């Protein structure tokens, strides 16, 4: 007689064994944890509240222990009950359910709570990210002002914070070393530490000042757009505004698509980012912003008719973005990225791309 197998082996797409018996085995494991928690907790409780004198019957004592003692004592059985209970609940909920059914039922609460679409997803467009964060800033000339991805102000703040905190430590060390010297004692270890910290502190200040000057000299870049979200086959008016005090050898505007894939294997989390589409929109040469004002210019971007829309799932994404690359005369080249969201085409018929014929299999019966 073949015994039931309490396991399932996954071989790529194939899965051997029985999910049902595997769930039973898993449920049994968690049930044991719950039982262990109950037994352990019961033993602890009985041990804490009973006093057994050598010459008499055990008598229960009033609860004389502080609440913290109870908390610590019940931590272990509590953990067993919580872990075992949650696992058991999960097993019961997923009992005998296929992968598709579990995925469908997990999605249901999200759909109900968020009026029919998952949180972070555009209504009516599964898998398409919402663009709420991109349309909450009105533009001065066009309808929306796009936020910048990873703004340099945060980098500047980070440099400044590091330099400030580190040099605060340097000051403390310097004061300590000064007192030692004044009192006639020489603490070589403290002095060595001070020199090391001072060197790093000076480096931090230099990096921060350089970043500050760069940000100030180059100036902010802003992008405004006439409408959002974007649609395939449509054109959009874009305003580029560039501040700064120097001359730019060139300012370039691009439209890009980036794919992101995140994978955990072993203990590594790996994110692969690849640009799969780039369309140069326009280039301006020898740009000189007027002092106190900014360089403003318009351009038109077009989303290709058969373009893939923006996509976002837990570990994968397809992102559209407007990219500005500037080449200042006396400073390094900078690149600033402005994310946009492209929705699927509203029409039922989308243009057929000639480069996309899938092999037609004769006798289409599942093979």
């Amino acid at each position, binding site marked *: 007689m*073949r015994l039931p*197998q*309490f*396991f*399932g*082996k*996954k*071989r*790529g*797409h*194939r*899965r*051997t*064994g*029985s*999910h049902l018996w595997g769930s039973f*085995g898993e449920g049994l*494991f968690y049930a*044991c*944890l719950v039982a*262990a928690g109950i037994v352990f907790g019961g033993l602890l409780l009985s041990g804490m509240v009973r006093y057994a004198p050598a010459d008499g019957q055990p008598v229960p004592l009033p609860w004389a222990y502080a609440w913290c003692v109870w908390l610590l004592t019940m931590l*272990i059985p509590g*953990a*067993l009950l919580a*872990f*075992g209970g949650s696992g058991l609940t999960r097993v019961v909920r997923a009992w005998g359910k296929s992968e598709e059914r579990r995925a469908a039922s997990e999605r249901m609460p999200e759909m109900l709570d968020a009026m029919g679409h998952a949180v972070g997803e555009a209504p009516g467009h599964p898998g398409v990210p919402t663009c709420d964060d991109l349309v909450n800033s009105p533009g001065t000339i066009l309808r929306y002002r796009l936020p910048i991805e990873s703004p340099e102000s945060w980098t500047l703040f980070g440099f400044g914070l590091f330099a400030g905190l580190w040099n605060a430590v340097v000051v403390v060390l310097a004061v300590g070393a000064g007192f030692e010297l004044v009192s006639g004692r020489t603490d070589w270890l403290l002095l060595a530490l001070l020199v090391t910290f001072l060197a790093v502190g000076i480096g931090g200040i230099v990096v921060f000042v350089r970043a500050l000057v760069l940000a100030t000299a180059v100036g902010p870049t802003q992008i405004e757009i006439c409408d959002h979200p974007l649609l395939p086959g449509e054109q959009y008016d874009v305003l580029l505004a560039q501040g700064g005090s120097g001359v730019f050898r060139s300012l370039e505007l691009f439209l890009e698509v980036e794919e992101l894939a995140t*994978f955990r*294997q*072993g*203990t*590594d*989390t790996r994110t*692969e980012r690849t640009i799969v589409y780039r369309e140069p929109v326009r280039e301006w040469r020898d740009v000189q912003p007027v002092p106190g004002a900014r360089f403003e210019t318009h351009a038109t971007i077009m989303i290709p008719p058969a373009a893939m829309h923006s996509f976002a799932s837990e570990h994968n994404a397809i992102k559209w973005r407007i990219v500005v690359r500037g080449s200042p005369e006396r400073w390094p080249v900078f690149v600033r990225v402005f994310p946009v969201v492209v929705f699927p085409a509203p029409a039922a018929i989308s243009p057929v791309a000639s480069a*996309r*014929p*899938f*092999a037609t*299999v004769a006798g289409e019966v*599942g*093979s």
Partner: protein
Amino acid sequence: MNANAGVMAAADMFVGNPFSTRHTRPGAIPPLDSAGRPVDVAALCAQLAFKGGSAAIVGAHGSGKTTLLEALAREFERAGIPAGRVRLRARRDAVQVLRAILCSPAGAVLCVDSWERMVPVAAGLVRLVARAVGCNLLVTTHRPTALPTLVVCATTPRLLAAIVDRLPGLEQRGGEVIADVDIEAAFRNHAGNIRESLYELYDRFEDRTRRPPVRL
């Protein structure tokens, strides 16, 4: 064909890039030794008992430690021995390991991935607690530790070639898209890291086959 086999039909399976994570993740391919032969997982499990119940799988990055750990965990479960799994991502995850040990029944095996992330003091404490509650540890680590070594995972070009041979769909492209020289070059470029080598082969396959995938 085994009776009662629950097997997903291969008919109409869309293959695409055979090096995608779908086909190369731990568990998708059975663990192989450095010569490319299937590892006798049951024998390794039996060896663990001789090592005192706790041991380490030692190997460099991308040498198949996690794949082997997962296979051993399933083998333990098949034998009726509960096997827990913990993946260490930071030093503070030692608490997670302790919690898992305390929740494990006596005789269980706790599989810990990336044991080298544990500081020595925490590792010693974890081992003490595990011994006290009768829980066995099976860990992966990049270098030998105080735990006895169960197996050392070593990689060779032959191992990478054996993995590639097991991937679906390569033969369907009507010719060798990925040749032996590609496998050797990927292995060489990534100093024997199988995982990174497979990523490179993914890129090579994509570069050469930017056309619709084959339907089997």
